[in-house]
């Protein structure tokens, strides 16, 4: 029995040390999540990409309506001119506020349906999607 006393002391010490380390790991979990800066930055960049996408979407819907007439959809040439101006403004804003290169162009005209390509690029992210707007009489 006495021969095991030292071993018991050592075993108990190991158990206490493990318990302290476990508490430290649990408490550190929140700090670690915040310390992964790359993930936080990417989330913010994607958030910016989507915010500009929604603004582009709303703007394009209105442009398609206002470029056309009440009884006729917009011509491709007129729409391309207006989209080019819109793209320029959004791109300036995205470059300034998010350090991003924003692309927006009319890609396909299919009857009354207009398909636009939207891109949002940063050093960490390449975001691409299409926006489809359908013209309809008011």
């Amino acid at each position, binding site marked *: *029995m*006495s*021969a095991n*006393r*030292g*071993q018991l*002391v*050592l075993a*108990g*010490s*190991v158990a*206490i*040390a*493990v318990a*302290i*380390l476990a*508490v*430290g*790991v649990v*408490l*550190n979990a*929140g*700090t670690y*999540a*915040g310390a992964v800066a790359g993930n*936080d930055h990417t*989330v*913010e960049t994607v*958030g910016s990409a989507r*915010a*500009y996408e*929604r*603004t582009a979407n*709303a*703007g394009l819907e*209105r*442009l398609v309506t*206002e*470029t056309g007439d009440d009884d006729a959809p917009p011509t491709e040439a007129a729409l391309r*001119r*207006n989209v080019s*101006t*819109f793209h*320029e*403004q*959004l791109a*300036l*804003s*995205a470059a*300034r*506020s*998010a350090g991003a290169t924003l692309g927006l162009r009319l890609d396909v005209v299919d009857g009354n349906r207009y398909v636009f390509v939207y891109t949002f690029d940063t050093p960490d992210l390449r975001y691409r999607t299409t926006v489809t707007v359908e013209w309809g009489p008011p």
Partner: protein
Amino acid sequence: MSRSGVTGGGSRGPHGEDRAQAYTLEGVLGALLIVIALLASMQVVVLTPATAGTVGDSVRAPLNGEVRSLLAAAATNGSLSRSVRYWNDSRVERTFAGGVTPTVGYGSRTPPTGLGRLLRDHFTSRGYHVNVFLTFIVTRSPPTWGRITFVYQGRPSDSAVAASRPVTLFDDDPLTGPRSANATVASANRSGAYPIPDVAPNGSLYNTVDVRVVVW
């Protein structure tokens, strides 16, 4: 048969001293393990309290998400655009309708707009401070910018979070102040009542305004 009245329980004899050394060594190792574990745990836990007026690291990411969500909600329900246009058709006021001064906009007051109420309900009522700035294009080439203040509640701390959202204005968008009559952003700018200019005069597009919210 032995009587172990000796502390440590070992019997004296040829192997007693060896066992004592072993016990000592094991005790020292055990103590060392505990100290190392304590040191390792202390390295990863923040022990100092946060400075008053700052935003802790564990709060910043969720708070940034809240700001983005608020801007998204305001954009979706139209209150973001209406707030950008909340001006009267007046050349005298030079700030938002009912604002304090052009320098601070509404200052620490709650703006009487949907965006203002969202900011109050989600941030200022919980003890946070908020600044809101509108940045717009003045010239396209080369690009130059102008800025007006919507809300100003002080100088942000180093740990403040910020998010922004673009708003597109069109020529025929009306001013939304209580004394805006039938003025549009374009007509009000021409008369000197509205500061954001028309940077696309050849079409229905007017300007793109960046609304930036800072919270701390």
